[in-house]
């Protein structure tokens, strides 16, 4: 499903070159729940941005569902983001001027669904995250956990093939974090592939495959948390 080979990312200024990723290779199969851990500055978020087509890579190849991403133009990349990928951010990234319903509606608008189809999908997604009674609430009227649930509903409404989560529980207390993580596990059990970047090893432990990134490379990969990962923690 997701196949990166020797992907590199270099940030250049006039005087400095920073290698965020070097020869980064990773394959993720359909239905997997992958956690990505590693020290700060190791390249986890850069990997996630490239995987989510939010950033261009400097070198290497990246195939998503068999399509070479480097050959897509802006419109096609936007289409892939919209149809195949759902994003969950640490700080939720809801649009403050829009209520819950309209926030979930945003990706569906760009998908071109008609009004009835959009409404059905929004209702189902919000129902699934348990916020049916909060449809008309604005983000500022919700708790952090509720906001993250709205973000998950937004990511799921378009039925993407995989979710990219960047520290999805980073701004939540442990109880809310647990609740969100349970939700992600349910979603994965239903067949959606999840890639989650996290600092917290206890959360990474819930994933089926753990990736440890160091100096812009995958340094370890195992079904359970490995010693190297533990050591880094």
């Amino acid at each position, binding site marked *: 499903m997701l196949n990166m080979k020797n992907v590199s990312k270099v940030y250049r200024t006039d005087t400095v070159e920073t290698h965020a990723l070097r020869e980064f290779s990773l394959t993720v199969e359909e239905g997997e729940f992958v956690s990505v851990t590693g020290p700060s500055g190791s390249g986890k*978020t850069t990997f996630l*941005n490239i995987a*989510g087509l*939010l*950033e*261009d890579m400097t070198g290497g190849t990246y195939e998503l569902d068999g399509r070479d991403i480097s050959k897509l133009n*802006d*419109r096609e990349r*936007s*289409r892939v*983001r*919209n*149809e195949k990928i759902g*994003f969950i*951010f*640490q*700080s939720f*990234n809801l*649009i*403050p*001027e*829009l209520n819950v319903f309209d926030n979930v509606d*945003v*990706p569906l*608008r*760009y*998908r071109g669904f008609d009004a009835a189809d959009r409404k059905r999908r929004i209702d189902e997604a919000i129902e699934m995250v348990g916020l049916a009674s909060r449809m008309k609430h604005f983000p500022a009227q919700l708790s952090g956990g509720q906001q993250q649930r709205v973000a998950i509903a*937004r990511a799921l409404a*378009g039925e993407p093939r995989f979710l990219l989560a960047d520290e999805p529980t980073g701004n939540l207390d442990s109880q809310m974090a647990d609740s969100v993580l349970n939700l992600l596990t349910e979603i994965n059990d239903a067949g959606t592939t999840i890639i989650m970047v996290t600092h917290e090893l206890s959360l990474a432990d819930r994933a089926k495959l753990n990736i440890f990134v160091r100096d812009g490379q995958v340094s370890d990969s195992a079904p359970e948390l490995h010693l190297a990962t533990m050591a880094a923690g």
Partner: protein
Amino acid sequence: MFRYYLKLGFLSIRANPLLSTLMVAAIAIGIGACMTIVTVRHVMSGNPIEHKNDVLYHVQVDNWNPDDAYQDPDLPPEQMTYMDARALHDAGRAFRQTTSFMSARVIQPEGEDARPFQQESRATTADFFPMFDVPFLYGAGWDRSADETEERVIVIGRELNEKLFGGEDSVGRTLRLNDETYRVTGVMDTWNPVPKFYDLNNNPYDEPAQLFFPFSVAVAGSFDNTGNTSCWKPVEEGAGREGFLASECIWIQMWVELQSPDEKQAYMSFLDAYVEEQKLLGRFPRPLNNRLNNPAEWMEDRDVVDDDVNVLLGMAVLFLVVCLLNTIGLLLAKATRRARDTSLRRALGASRAELFRQHIIEAGMIGVAGGLLGIAMTWLGLRGIENVFIEYDFIEHLVRMDWSMVMLAVVLAILSALCAALYPTWRTCNITPATQLRLQ
């Protein structure tokens, strides 16, 4: 999606009230300044008889001084001598033709208490009214036979009819002018062509006369010409009125109506032949230089729009540009504020083109608001001009804002806002989404 973009635009404007208000104000002030001058220029340069532009022609023949052209570069006089006007008119070679000059008469109203008053007027011929589509409230102009028989007939304006006859149908009633009795054949409805194309020599922005009588009557009665008179040869001393009529002094305006290019060509040949004939009699010492200008050409030829107005227009456009530069700055500030929203929409699947449309539509909404406020600013600007030049009667005709100007203000505001939005929108759409989302 258009309605969705409108909704997003509205929400964005509401979420950034200060920046949005400043942008609307910047556009409105620029549009107001620009449209104030554009409106004045539009009225000054308008063609009130555009629908007959290809059939009406102002006639010019060059009887001027052989050593000194009437006006550089080699332009013939804009008016005509009595001899030429009479000869060309009486030849009747055009479908319609009219000669006219400004005059004044003393009206002696009926009733013991009524006081006589002087009335600005115009001596002209029967064709004047149908040629220039003069609207009538009652009756009509006189017919050609009245010109030939020097009949004492008049056409009066609506205002004068109100003053003298209380607005009633006065056709057939009589009026005393300088101790002579005239019969009213028609009452004009409101008619105020701006500029007064048929006589640009005497303030083109003055209102038309309220009193018209036959040219032949005015000549026979030696009515004074109150318009411009220019002579390049002195009138023979002691020759009196006859000497003036036989002189090379120009004081009459002449127009013809020609219904096709062939008729125009034929009339031009006729003019050339006439001048060649006059040359044999010792007149017209300059080279052949006859002109037939349609109203638009004639107004351009006469520089109806003052150069100062064009300079002011240039300055107003520059001012609008400065306002737009400010708007660009404000839009850039707004784009910076909204970078996260834009990046998020990119992450959720919006293409650059879709974001471009969203932001351009929002800019269009700012433009519409700026345009509407700009119309109010324009109205204020025009009232300001009216107050500054209040001592000039004609100024009220130059500060009228018609629907075309209202529409132009809105369209110009929208275009201005869209132009101002191009660069900020382009920058916004080219943000790498990850850079903004990573900061969260």
